[in-house]
């Protein structure tokens, strides 16, 4: 029995058409088909730019043998007359998961956090899997292959879409007649990467985007070190990574910002990634062009929001409405900017949606040639496979499409998709085009019948006089089957007939509503013409809203520029020894404070009358978590390797709102999940600028440390991570600093060492090059932290929160530590039981430099009021209170040479207040950074009107889309999580 099954299996395999030359043959005698096929009189797109009218394509054994206007056709050719038809290279998708089994996120979970790797003999992080090979998981999927061929695709590059490094892909021809020996064009076609963790690996690091970025940097460095033979142990991941080095590296970014992040990592390691885009590249197109990367673009555009309910419509942000309106022009904008890109079906629910979306992109201005390139030559060139696929030049694979005309035309029918010389019929090209207008005689009546749509998939409309009847048509294998109903659907007429190629009329059998059989005849009265109205609708270019900086409500149409401005007759709070200057003028020029004095001459400056108003330096927040895409990397208890600068979110509306509260600079801190957190980003809140332009040039280096309940994980169910006590917290620091010292010593000695980004940062702290902002609450831990610093001979720069600082203020002053504290927060957890609002005043009186900070996106926009609370609690003078949100935080951040006070030569970061700046009644009227006005009450008013107008305009466009039968999505609101220290 078993033997018989085995024999059957062999027989089945042996019967394939594509038995290899050197394989034995037992089901017959060896034979080979060396015939040619010639397609004549066709319009042939050899490449998107090389088009031959009335040409011949000659193929043999799955390859293009000749193509051109005059091709001599060998005798042993099957000749196909393709007159009136067009031939295109078939499409290529290089971001596919076709046939490759994909890991699935296991349901459930909730087990204890896993910190260590689960694998042995591989890299220390489970999410790094360069050793994975799609070929090992590949099984040809006939059904999916047909779907793809029906959409015009002939070749796909498929891979395992899981993890940060995902291993190699497999390049497959969608050849249903062959087997893997023919179809697999390359079993190691490219290496794929992303910022996303594996869905099946539980190892907790990295939990964040910045962790993933740090991990990639360390991995590349480790790979070099490994390649140089420095490791005593075997690491199959690093070996695979080094082996895959020569392949094309494709990075899944899916977002403009992530594309730039990935490209930066690539540049630092000598790698130019090809990048999977996200459809929003147009928002930062100049920087995208600057990556020099080739892009792979999903062609999945957002559906319009159903805004017919005006209350529900309020939930849709302008940003998302705009995205619906602008995103279809993304491919055009990339094309306009000369950025090479291919298109992918990635993220599309079904390949069948592909054509409609592509047509939309073309309607929004994507040139057809570019569209064709994006589907043929560009993907081939990204993979380095232009020699075998992507065109119909001689020697390439015979992968091509035969169509009724322009492939990007709505009415065009795709007849055949040939893969490796194998014919696949999508629509019968020999079937007659029956589109047109007819008089239909049936059951003694005559009706008006018109057949429209695609020739291969025609649509029908039948009218009785002017009444439209319910009707249906199917047309397959030259047979039509049509039906209609009169009397409101009560009487059904069913017909079928064979289309006669010699006649324009259609005749056949009819079944009457009463069941009697008869005949029908449709007499053609006129030929098919495109609906003029339709054409007009299609032709009109849709209105696309202008992109703003950033591209959401309150974004700028043009970025603000530094101006020369004279503020006249203000009450000037200098935050310097000069204190408050009444009736004073301040001139700013070239982004700097140029003159302070009385009766300054305006010259060419724009004059702002500040009579009765107060001019101050911009507020500086020592502790913020706004404008961040991530706050904590919680995967390890020390994460000095991660950088907040990697995850600055320049599109956070809180930036704008804080400008409205007079804030101009802020330290974006890592959260407090770990004793040793990540490195800070010190920002100027330049709304509309890129993250890079918001980060201080020559920024002082900072890192977040944390103590107490958060790092002990006291307030949630976590019992496995060290440290669980304050005793353990000290040991983490002692251990890391000792190791950092040893690392630095070894490095400086000139001995070979393994570059360790985390240790590099620890060494910077020890060398006084990087400062710590340490999240702290109770006096014991504050004291401990200073002793650790003393032991390693550095100064602890800033304690942040520091709510029991007042208990050890003398020790802090002696050590030289500064403080950034809340004005009046307490009682939210056990360790703030003794927090008092007099803290700032007591510390200040003991000689500590004190800042009032926010750690809160709401409070930050009222830091002037929070400073005023030190007047109430502890009796600070108003001058001292004001310094706590200007020059003092500037000192703590080592930026007091540039900002924090009104002094000639400093940056013109200024706020014009309507009232005494410490008063609850004061409003920021203008907020300037480096002489450019980033917030202005008057402009804000105009913005509100503009938002209302644009929303209305977009809502009307969406209502029109709905009325036109467009696909809609329910109203929804994308919302960013407001982040704090504890956000994971």
């Amino acid at each position, binding site marked *: 029995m078993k033997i018989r099954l085995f024999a059957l299996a062999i027989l089945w395999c042996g019967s394939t058409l594509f038995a290899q030359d050197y394989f034995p043959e037992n089901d017959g005698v060896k034979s080979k088909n060396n015939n040619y096929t010639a397609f004549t009189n066709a319009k042939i797109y050899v490449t998107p730019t090389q088009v031959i009218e009335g040409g011949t394509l000659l193929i043999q054994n799955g390859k293009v043998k000749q193509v051109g206007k005059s091709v001599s056709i060998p005798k042993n050719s099957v000749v196909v007359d393709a007159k009136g038809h067009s031939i295109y290279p078939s499409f290529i998708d290089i971001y596919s998961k076709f046939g490759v089994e994909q890991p699935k996120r296991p349901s459930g979970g909730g087990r204890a956090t896993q910190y260590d790797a689960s694998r042995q003999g591989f890299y220390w992080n489970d999410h790094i899997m360069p050793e994975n090979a799609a070929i090992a998981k590949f099984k040809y999927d006939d059904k999916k292959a047909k779907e793809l061929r029906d959409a015009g695709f002939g070749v796909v590059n498929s891979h395992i879409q899981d993890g940060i490094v995902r291993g190699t892909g497999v390049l497959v021809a969608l050849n249903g007649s062959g087997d893997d020996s023919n179809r697999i064009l390359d079993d190691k076609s490219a290496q794929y990467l992303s910022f996303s963790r594996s869905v099946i690996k539980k190892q907790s690091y990295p939990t964040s985007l910045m962790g993933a970025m740090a991990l990639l940097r360390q991995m590349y460095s480790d790979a070099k070190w490994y390649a140089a033979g420095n490791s005593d142990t075997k690491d199959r991941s690093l070996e695979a990574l080094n082996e895959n080095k020569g392949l094309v590296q494709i990075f899944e970014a899916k977002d403009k910002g992530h594309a730039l992040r990935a490209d930066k990592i690539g540049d630092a390691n000598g790698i130019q990634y090809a990048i999977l885009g996200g459809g929003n590249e147009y928002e930062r197109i100049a920087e995208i062009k600057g990556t020099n990367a080739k892009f792979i673009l999903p062609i999945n555009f957002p559906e319009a929001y159903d805004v017919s309910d005006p209350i529900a419509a309020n939930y849709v942000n302008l940003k998302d409405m705009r995205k619906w309106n602008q995103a279809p022009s993304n491919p055009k904008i990339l094309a306009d900017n000369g950025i090479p890109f291919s298109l992918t079906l990635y993220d599309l629910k079904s390949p069948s949606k592909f054509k409609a979306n592509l047509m939309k992109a073309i309607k929004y201005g994507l040139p057809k040639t570019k569209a064709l390139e994006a589907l043929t030559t560009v993907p081939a060139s990204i993979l380095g496979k232009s020699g075998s696929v992507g065109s119909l030049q001689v020697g390439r694979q015979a992968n091509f499409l035969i169509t009724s005309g322009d492939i990007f035309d709505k009415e065009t029918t795709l007849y055949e998709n040939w893969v490796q010389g194998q014919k696949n019929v999508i629509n019968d090209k020999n079937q007659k085009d029956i589109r047109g207008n007819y008089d239909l005689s049936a059951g003694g009546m005559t009706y008006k019948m018109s057949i429209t749509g695609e020739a291969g998939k025609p649509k029908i409309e039948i009218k009785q006089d002017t009444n439209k009847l319910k009707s249906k048509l199917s047309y397959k294998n030259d047979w039509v089957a049509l039906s209609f109903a009169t009397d409101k659907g009560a009487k059904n007429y069913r017909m079928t007939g064979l289309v006669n190629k010699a006649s324009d009329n259609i005749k056949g059998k009819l079944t009457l509503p009463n069941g009697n059989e008869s005949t029908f005849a449709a007499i053609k009265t006129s030929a098919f013409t495109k609906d003029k109205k339709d054409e007009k609708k299609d032709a009109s270019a849709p209105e696309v809203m202008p992109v703003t900086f950033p591209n959401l409500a309150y974004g700028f149409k043009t970025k603000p520029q530094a101006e020369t401005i004279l503020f006249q007759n203000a009450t000037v709070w200098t935050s310097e020894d000069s204190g408050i200057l009444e009736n004073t003028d301040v001139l700013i020029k070239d982004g700097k404070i140029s003159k302070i004095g009385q009766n300054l001459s305006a010259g060419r400056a724009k004059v702002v009358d500040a009579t009765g108003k107060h001019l101050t330096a911009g507020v500086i927040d020592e502790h913020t978590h706004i404008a961040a895409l991530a706050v904590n990397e919680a995967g390890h208890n020390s994460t000095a390797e991660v950088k907040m600068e990697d995850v600055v979110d320049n599109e956070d509306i809180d930036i704008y709102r804080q400008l409205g509260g007079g804030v101009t600079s802020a330290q974006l801190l890592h959260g407090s999940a770990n004793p040793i957190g990540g490195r800070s980003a010190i920002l100027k809140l330049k709304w509309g600028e890129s993250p890079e332009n918001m980060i201080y040039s020559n920024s002082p280096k900072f890192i977040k440390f944390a103590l107490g309940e958060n790092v002990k994980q006291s307030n949630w169910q976590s019992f496995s991570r060290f440290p669980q006590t304050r005793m353990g917290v000290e040991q983490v620091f002692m251990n890391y600093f000792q190791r950092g010292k040893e690392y630095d010593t070894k490095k400086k000695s000139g001995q070979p060492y393994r570059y360790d980004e985390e240790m590099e940062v620890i060494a910077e702290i020890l060398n006084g090059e990087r400062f710590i902002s340490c999240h702290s609450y109770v006096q014991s831990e504050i004291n401990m932290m200073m002793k650790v610093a003393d032991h390693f001979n550095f100064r602890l720069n800033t304690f942040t929160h520091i709510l029991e600082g007042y208990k050890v*203020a003398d020790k802090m002053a002696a050590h030289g530590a500064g403080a950034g504290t809340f004005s009046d927060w307490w009682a939210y957890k056990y360790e703030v039981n003794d927090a*008092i609002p007099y803290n700032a005043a007591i510390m200040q009186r003991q000689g500590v430099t004190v800042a009032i900070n926010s750690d809160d996106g709401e409070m930050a926009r009222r830091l002037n009021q929070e400073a005023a609370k030190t007047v109430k*609690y502890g009796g600070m003078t108003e001058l001292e209170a004001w310094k706590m949100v200007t020059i003092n935080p500037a000192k703590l951040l080592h930026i007091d040479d540039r900002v924090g006070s009104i002094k000639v030569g400093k940056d013109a970061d200024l706020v014009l207040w309507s009232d005494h700046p410490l008063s609850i009644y004061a409003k920021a009227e203008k907020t300037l950074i480096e002489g450019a006005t980033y917030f202005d009450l008057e402009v*804000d008013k105009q913005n509100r009107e503009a938002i209302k107008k644009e929303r209305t305009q977009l809502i009307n466009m969406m209502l029109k889309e709905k009325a036109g039968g467009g696909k809609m999505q329910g109203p929804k609101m994308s919302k960013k999580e407001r982040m704090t220290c504890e956000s994971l």
Partner: protein
Amino acid sequence: MKKQKNILITLLLTFGMTSWAQQTPANKQTEAITITGATAHIGDGTVVENCTIVFEDGKITALGSGETTQGTVIDASGKHVYPGFIAPVKELGLIEVNAVRASRDADEIGDMIPHVRSLIAYNSESKVVESMRPNGVLMAQITPKGGRISGTSSIVQFDAWNWEDAAVKVDDGIHLNWPSSFRRGRWWLGEPRGLKPNKDYQKQVTEVETFLQNSAAYGGNTAKELNPAFAAMQGTFNGSQKLYLYADGEKEIIDGITLAKNSGIKSVVLVGGYHAYKVTDFLKENDIPVLVQFTHNTPNFEDDDYDLPYKLPKLLSDAGLLVAIQNGEASNFQTRNLPFYAGQVVGQGLAKEKAVQMITGNTAKILGIDATHGTLAIGKSATLFISEGDALDMRTNQLSHAFIDGRNISLETHQTELWKRYSGKYEGE
């Protein structure tokens, strides 16, 4: 033995007071007290300059410029007198430390539990409650949280030995969290963060409707087994209790108030009301007062005016609604900032005295205690305080005296004691 006892008492007095105990409640008012020369912010929108205020037995007996002084005279020239500020919908005394579960008593399990009463769990010796007083916040509505109907609140004053003594109005209202027509994406299940339509909204509304219908029907039943939940709702039908309806969206506000009214509930107060400014006509027609969300908030919608939360109370007040400010969603300790929430609206152009009303007279009216509290008026409780300056501005909110029912209460707290203790440490060095 006697000596030892004395030592013990001295020790208790010196250390006990400063290191762990709460402030001792003040004794009953035994003699008349007169405040003279003050700028009196009445709490009804008016001010009386150079005002003399007399109170006896806990009640104001005279008020005006030129009234005769009696008993102890406090010269408040150049200073300001306000009625004690009132904080609605707070879990003060129910939660001491947010992160310590053992200290949380605000949220009972169960969906419709109007019979759960806050008053008996109110900790009159809470250190957080104590810290309200130096800022002029002297009363609150102690309110259970969570679920659909969270329970029954009571109104207390902040200087008492126990909850019984603290009570000003027992079981004053029922708190209903109206369902939301939009809900947050469950991001932990891979849904996008942000809001999307709540498919269960209508079902949840029906649940409330069914509950209210049953509660109303239960009231008409004479021979019955006790249903504690239905029984607890009866005051809302006979007008002795108010229904506090928490809703922010236009649809929610209209649905909630319509259903409550149709169910026979006599007095409805809207709490939250982020979008109330879009339905002011509806609120006016239905005579609905609003306990509006506090001003120190960021806008809920990206496209909103950056200062919408700052001006929201003004928008509602300008539309002619009765408005008071609450910070139910903030941490308890924040409630001492109530005067500054009101001050923030003044920055948006609201008259100062109108802002004062929103944390005094209007609040008392909405909570139904205006016969005895909320404004400075003859016959009303002498629950008031003296501030060195404008109490709505943090720089000048400096209390010298505060009285609850005429009792001269301590303005010390756990925090002022630590302040003094550590200031003393450094001064002594």
